[in-house]
């Protein structure tokens, strides 16, 4: 188990390999379909959302207000990342991201951006909304909620020991490519 703390350095990230299990402590910002399209069309991130050296989490959480009026995250598993494939490389390049957390993997353009700019794709367990919400200590802020609605807003999470697996590293390796090729070859034997 490798412990990572934000902000992440390029060296740290380039040291990771496919299959490494990590736990992250620090800040995560969520961003999914609406945010990626907005950035792709030239939109600017609001002040307070600093992604440099940071981690973007593909997630539409369930967040409610507690009795004191603070945000409390009650469910926070990942969403399927492949939908952001057209936009991810650009965001890695322009914002200086060191890690993207999601599920289901991403494709060649993102893999190339990871290698070029020093970034990794971390796969969180899909549907593990409670296990992951437990690692969120606080929700200091939410941005662009009025524009995008709660699931698509940029949520700021303070996390401790948030677990994920490296499935795309900065060396051009992707577990998703390997499993696809292997399963394709295996299926050919049975049809």
């Amino acid at each position, binding site marked *: 188990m490798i412990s990572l703390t934000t902000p992440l350095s390029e060296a740290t990230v380039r040291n990771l390999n496919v299959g490494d299990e990590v736990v992250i402590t620090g800040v995560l910002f969520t961003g999914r379909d609406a945010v990626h399209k907005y950035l792709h069309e030239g939109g600017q991130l609001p002040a307070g959302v600093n992604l440099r050296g940071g981690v973007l989490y593909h997630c539409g*959480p369930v967040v409610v207000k507690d009795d004191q009026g603070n945000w409390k995250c*009650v*469910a926070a598993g990942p969403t*399927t990342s492949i939908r952001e494939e057209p936009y991810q490389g650009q965001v890695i390049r322009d914002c200086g991201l060191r890690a993207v957390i999601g599920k289901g993997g991403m494709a060649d353009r993102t893999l190339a951006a990871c290698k070029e700019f020093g970034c990794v794709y971390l796969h969180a367990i899909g549907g593990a909304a409670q296990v992951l919400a437990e690692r969120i200590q606080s929700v200091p802020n939410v941005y662009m909620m009025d524009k995008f*609605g709660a*699931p698509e807003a940029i949520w700021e999470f303070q996390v401790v020991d948030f677990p994920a697996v490296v499935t795309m590293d900065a060396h051009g390796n992707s577990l998703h490519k390997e*499993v696809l090729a292997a*399963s394709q070859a*295996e*299926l050919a034997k049975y049809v």
Partner: protein
Amino acid sequence: MNALLDSLLELIRRTSTEIPDDVHTAILASLEREKKGTIAESAMKIIDQNIALAKNKSQPICQDTGSIIFYVDCPLGLDQIAFSEAARDAVKLATKKGYLRQNSVDSITGKNDGTNVGPGSPILHFHQHRAPELTVKLVLKGGGCENVGAQYSLPNEKLKANRDLDGCRKAILDAVLQAQGKGCGPGILGVCIGGDRATGYEYSKQQLLRRLDDRNPSAELDGLEQDIVATSNKLGIGPMGFGGHTTLLGTKIGVLNRLPASYFVSISYMCWAFRRQGATLGAQGEIQNWLY
């Protein structure tokens, strides 16, 4: 009316936060099958922890509480309009309480009003029968797994699939291959052979109402169901597509008549977080017993 609203709210809460027994049994078996020390095993362990945590905290198993699909089997004379209104109120209330995510988006404006109620949400299917019983079943089906559903038209040249059960088999296995881990496997397939494009997909989802441990009364379809699961598990896609021994927990196949010109195989992919529950309701709308 209040009793009905309370019952529907409790049905939503329970469906969202507690995995049904038949699914939990299958998940535990799958954890046993994964090789120790692999990331597949890690994934299944976290899934198992998550199930317990969700139940204890009465919070959603998965944050994507998905499409809200009610199946109501009702006697003659049930006021379906009133029932639908109660269901919509229960959905709004469940959303305020955090049992459901704010999941209903206007497809033209992109706006999410946060209520979960709008054109197409929630979905209510009423089926009338001549018995006195009133049962309501609920499936919460997330968007991730919905996106990896597929509908094939046979013959399919690329798959060398002809209009027969072998062709259906090839289509179904192709759907599993294309899905990889994106549907949050190990998954469950609901399949319909036949129908039109609409009824085919709809009936494929209804197959998800079957218990995982049941068997298809048709020997032919039962054979195909078992074979799809066994073959899929040989592909090595595994939990989350990490590579591993369990890719599918089950496959349930239904059949509808078709037009001579059409031959559809419709596949709905359900994730491991198989949220499906139901209740028999009494005359005042109170819950008499749970169905799963």
